[in-house]
């Protein structure tokens, strides 16, 4: 019983960290066909922005003057926004090549950059370069570390153990993010149009989709979510330029294990991998948790290469069959 409760409580932070690490990456990967190896650094931008805003490091923006919890929430929202805007900048300059092409068309008379959309491998190399640039630029500009942010909310006691309430609440935030995304994808045509755009860009244009705006919005949304993740983890982490690398691997594994559907896939992979991690970490130690998570990922990719969300689709088809 106590063990069961322990496992349940431990599951929440694991679930939260996998889901929050993965959503931004999943959207950019699933919808734009861009593998963002700088995803961890986008998370880092979120964390740095939160820390700077919270500690009064942003000129003309007195977030540090806000009282209590609103100071933290203000800093986090600000960070998500900053990262989204930063993502927009990256999209325009690197991913779409729009800015360099605008320049080259006026000087050389022709575009020089082919957009990285749906070029998985090229986008990997380019964003790898971006990640090198970001980590070291932040190091040079902000130093090797920034001062942190306290963890709010205190502790949650259960049995003879306790855990930071904040870490448990993060699971709620992760669930909220998934629900919000679900609504965005289901209630609006945005998700459908975005998927159509990546499947056949010129046809989507011919049907009235402003594909350029779709890409910009998608990348900004994915970046904003990465920024939010960084913001949410600022209280828990030591704020250093390299902090993003912790998230990258889990995010990748979760995205691939989840499959093509961003919301369902991330939910399922966060759930399953979270359970595996919790179970093995608790029973056999952290190393076992880590290895078990990776090995489960390998087995899943091998046996369900289309991802966990394809299982749901198959179930849906099964139902159609019965109808």
């Amino acid at each position, binding site marked *: 019983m106590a063990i069961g409760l322990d496992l349940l409580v431990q599951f929440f932070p694991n679930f939260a960290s996998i889901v929050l690490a993965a959503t931004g990456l999943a959207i950019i990967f699933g919808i734009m066909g861009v593998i963002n190896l700088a995803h961890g650094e986008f998370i880092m931008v979120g964390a740095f922005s939160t820390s700077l805003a919270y500690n009064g490091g942003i000129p003309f923006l007195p977030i540090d003057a806000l009282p209590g919890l609103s100071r933290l929430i203000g800093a986090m929202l600000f960070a998500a926004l900053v990262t989204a805007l930063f993502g927009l900048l990256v999209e325009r300059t*690197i991913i779409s090549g729009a800015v360099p092409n605008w320049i080259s068309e006026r000087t050389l008379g022709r575009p020089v950059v082919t957009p990285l959309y749906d070029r*998985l491998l*090229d986008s990997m190399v380019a964003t790898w*370069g971006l990640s090198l640039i*970001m980590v070291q630029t932040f190091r*040079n500009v902000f130093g090797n570390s920034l001062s942190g942010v306290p963890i709010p909310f205190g502790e949650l006691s259960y049995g003879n153990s306790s855990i930071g309430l904040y870490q448990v609440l993060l699971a709620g935030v992760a669930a909220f993010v998934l629900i919000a995304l679900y609504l965005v994808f289901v209630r609006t045509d945005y998700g459908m149009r975005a998927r159509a755009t990546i499947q056949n860009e010129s046809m989507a244009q011919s049907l009235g989709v402003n594909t350029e705006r779709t890409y910009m919005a998608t990348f900004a949304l994915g970046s904003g979510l990465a920024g939010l993740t960084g913001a949410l983890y600022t209280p828990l982490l030591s704020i250093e330029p390299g902090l993003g690398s912790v998230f990258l691997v889990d995010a990748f594994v979760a995205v691939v294990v989840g499959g093509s559907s961003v919301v369902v896939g991330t939910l399922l992979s966060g759930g399953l991998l979270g359970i595996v991690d919790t179970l093995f970490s608790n029973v056999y130690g952290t190393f076992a948790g880590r290895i078990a998570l990776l090995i489960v990922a*390998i087995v899943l*990719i091998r046996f369900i290469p289309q991802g966990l969300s394809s299982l749901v689709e198959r179930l849906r088809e099964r139902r159609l069959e019965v109808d």
Partner: protein
Amino acid sequence: MGVESDDTATRGPLGRLAAALHGPNTMGNSRRFWYLFGVVVLLFVFFPLYMLPSAVTNMSQYLSLVLLALSLAVVWGYTGVLSFGQVAFFGVAGYTYGIVAINVTGPLGTIAGLVVAVGIAALFAAILGYFMFYGGVSDVYVTILTLVVVLVLKTFLDQTAGDEWTIGEAALGGFNGMPGIPDLALGIGEPFLVFNDTVLFYAALLAVLVTYLGLRALLNSDYGRVMVAVREDEDRTEMLGYDVKRVKLTVFTFGGALAGLSGVLYVTYFNYISPSELSLTAASLPVIWVAVGGRKTLLGPIVATIFIERLGLFLSVNVGDWAFVINGLLLLVIVLLLPEGLLPGLRDLVSWIGDRRGDSDTDDTTDPTGEVIE
């Protein structure tokens, strides 16, 4: 695959060699290329004469990494299987060589180490490849799966510091790695040739040369054409009667062996190996070398590997703080401006400029009703 040899009997041995090395799948089919190639090879052969010893040993390191790049060029560039896991075979071979060579002393031990290491790397690749290709894993899923395999290995090796991880005389050594790995050597009992310093350089140079020429021959052979066909369209190739899974498995295994050879040369350069060879950064480097150089070429990855590695050293000596930034910018610029890679990009640029010069005449004189369209 039971493919017959080319019809070259009439051209004599030299002609046959030339025919074997030429074809649509590799860059550099002109006479001018081979002159240039000869000059570059000579520059390398005399490298120790005009360079400092540290430059020579560093170059042997780059040359052994070139083999790793080539292994990925074959697997990814020519067969379309993007493995993020070449460093796994590299690392496994490195550790295996260390274990064997530390335990079996003397030159024979090192040679046995080499053979066993390359064999284990190939076997590992074969098992992994079988698991993936015969299980229908493809595309980006291969990429991620191989990456996860690397991370599992690294996570495992990081915690092997304890005494229980000592194999014979060789301790795996955890994060700190396995020191004391002997140089490769030839001889029975007493070594008469030890592969260190300049000797290692020549060994690595020879390995790269042989590999390059051998791969040229392979890629322009019937089998090489099937590899390219698999890259271009797996279904079509299957429907021409080729066993696509087996081709992928064979190439992947071969790539594993080549990466393994690279790993062995590399650890004999360091006399040491540690799990950092299996980090995410290390795993991505071969992808970057090959992507930057031009994945559908052999020369591209060779040039890019040496260039990028040497540049890294240059920047860390001369630039300091902003070295990573410059390095990153360079990658970005190359991928964005030359998506086919450095060498093909330069080639296209040269021909584009040539075209522009030629074109500017014809453009002006094109008759609006002229036969422009075929």
